[in-house]
């Protein structure tokens, strides 16, 4: 007798062993292998059903000055500043190691022009090592000065520009810092996006009560963790009613129950972010608990759950 539901699921044509993946920038598979040894890459141990890389840019970035992180009530602020080795460094130094991952790889990329995105997308695709790309569109467009992900039209244009230039599924990572993320999601779908993922972090800061100044070196950053879960669930639900492409839901997932809430709100996959910091194998635990939650509700597979009569 099975005690937990079976979790394999297809996402944009990729076979995944479960709907639990990681949020970009919240797990460094390479560092984990360095610290925890080869165990960390064993297929029975790797905590996610797909691995999303930290966001890669064309040129290397050092990231922001400290403090980069600050704890808040059931959450944290980060202002990491996308440190990364740049496209060349990533392709040469990181991809060969990530090729040994026991799960599909999704590479997160960010650029300031459609052409920059194209170069990132094409080069990553060439390597044959990525199963999908996630587009981090929280950066200002150097031409328009507008933050792409805040503007439905900018987002749609970017997608139209990229679509046809790659065979890989394109996931747009939406920002929560707009009046209507639904509009941006609709535009992303219209432009050809294969999926959307949300939420990225919410603009936030903390004041260090000792110094009286912002506790974050860069002045402000983004909020994540259980504190933001209600905001994330609202946006997932609102977007679900407006688009038909799949949604990767995230924001404060800490256990099977909160993962299930995202699925109930309309997500196809859930991503674990901040919770990884509290436990390197949180993804595995959440996957297990999610299976048990589904079983308790009478579903013997994630497929049965997805096909449930709508309530």
């Amino acid at each position: 007798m099975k005690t937990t539901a079976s979790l394999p699921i297809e996402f944009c044509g990729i076979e995944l062993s479960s709907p639990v993946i990681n949020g970009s920038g919240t797990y460094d598979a390479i560092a984990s292998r360095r610290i925890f040894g080869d165990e960390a890459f064993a297929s029975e141990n790797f905590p996610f059903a797909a691995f999303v890389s930290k966001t890669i840019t064309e040129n290397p970035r050092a990231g922001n000055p400290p403090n980069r992180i600050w704890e808040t009530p059931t959450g944290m602020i980060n202002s990491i500043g996308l440190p990364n080795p740049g496209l060349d460094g990533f392709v040469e130094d990181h991809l060969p190691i990530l090729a040994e991952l026991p799960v599909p790889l999704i590479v997160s990329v960010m650029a300031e022009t459609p052409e920059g995105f194209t170069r990132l997308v094409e080069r990553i695709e060439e390597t044959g090592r990525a199963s999908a790309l996630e587009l981090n569109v929280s950066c200002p467009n150097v031409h328009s000065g507008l933050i792409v992900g805040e503007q439905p039209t900018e987002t749609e244009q970017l997608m139209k520009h990229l679509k046809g230039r790659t065979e890989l599924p394109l996931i747009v990572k939406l920002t929560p810092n707009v009046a209507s993320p639904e509009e941006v999601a609709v535009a992303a779908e219209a432009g050809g996006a294969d999926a959307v993922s949300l939420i990225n972090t919410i603009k936030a800061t903390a004041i260090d009560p000792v110094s009286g100044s912002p506790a974050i070196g860069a002045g402000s950053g983004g909020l994540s963790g259980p504190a933001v879960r209600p905001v994330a669930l609202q946006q997932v639900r609102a977007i679900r009613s407006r688009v038909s492409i799949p949604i990767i839901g995230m924001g404060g997932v800490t256990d099977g129950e909160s993962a299930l809430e995202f699925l109930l709100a309309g997500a196809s996959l859930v991503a674990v972010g901040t919770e990884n910091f509290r436990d390197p194998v949180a993804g595995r635990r959440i996957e297990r608990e999610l299976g048990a939650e589904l079983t308790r509700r009478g579903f013997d597979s994630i497929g049965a759950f997805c096909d449930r009569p709508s309530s």
Partner: protein
Amino acid sequence: MAPDRPTPPFGRRAVEVREAAADGGYRIFTLVDREGPEPLPGQFYMLCEAPEWSSIEGRPYLPRAISYARSTGREGELLLEFLIDDVGPGTKRLGRLEKGDGCWITGPFGNPFSAPREIAESPAGAILVGGGIGIAPLAAFRRSLISKGFPTRTLLGFRDLEHSGAVESLFGCEEVRLAFEDGSSGHHGYVTDLLELLLERDDPGGAIVYSCGPPAMLEAVKKICASAGVPAELALESPMACGFGACFGCAVPRADGNGYLRLCIDGPVVRSEEIATALVGESG
């Protein structure tokens, strides 16, 4: 490639508090770790209380980095001793742990202190310089140096007598000199005064300094050693969300201007000349 440091179990594990007590100004407790490898001096663990870890304010929420001060027993039943300065919600909660309580840990993490021979060709002696809660990793390192018969002198500084309560149990009394900011005993002033005196008076040739303490103290140690031409290793602190390289939160500027270290995996022990400053993230 064989790892150059202990390989911690992948994932957090539940451990139990064997003993807990106040020891002067700091709290001290021992955990029984049945799954982890023997740690090396300078390494740290990420700790949080099990099963709960929060208060009305929703903090502490993330685990906290704590250096071990002593490890006894052997793999399968390691006893790990920690020293806590309760400066905020996380350390307050850890400081309330009682015998029999549960706790989650991951680790050991980070670079240990380097053996003297890895630093200098013919090292003559080690000088350990600790301030406040920074004595914890030095206690572990001193025991290892002394067990190898390496000549070791120890200089420790505290704000007052109360906060030096753990010294006797962790360091014994031999070759340990104390400084107190309030003049309650020993040298009246900073522990870095003692270091300066020592490096001036003695021939510093072959000496290696190992230090841990508040940022301002480490910055002084960095300067003193640089001008005396003495190599130094510093165990730094920075806010850490994960301890295993996942969050990129623990950035410390490199001396060469070439970006940042991740202190949890490239530190917490660094060569003095590797970093631009020990005054990391002092906000304002």
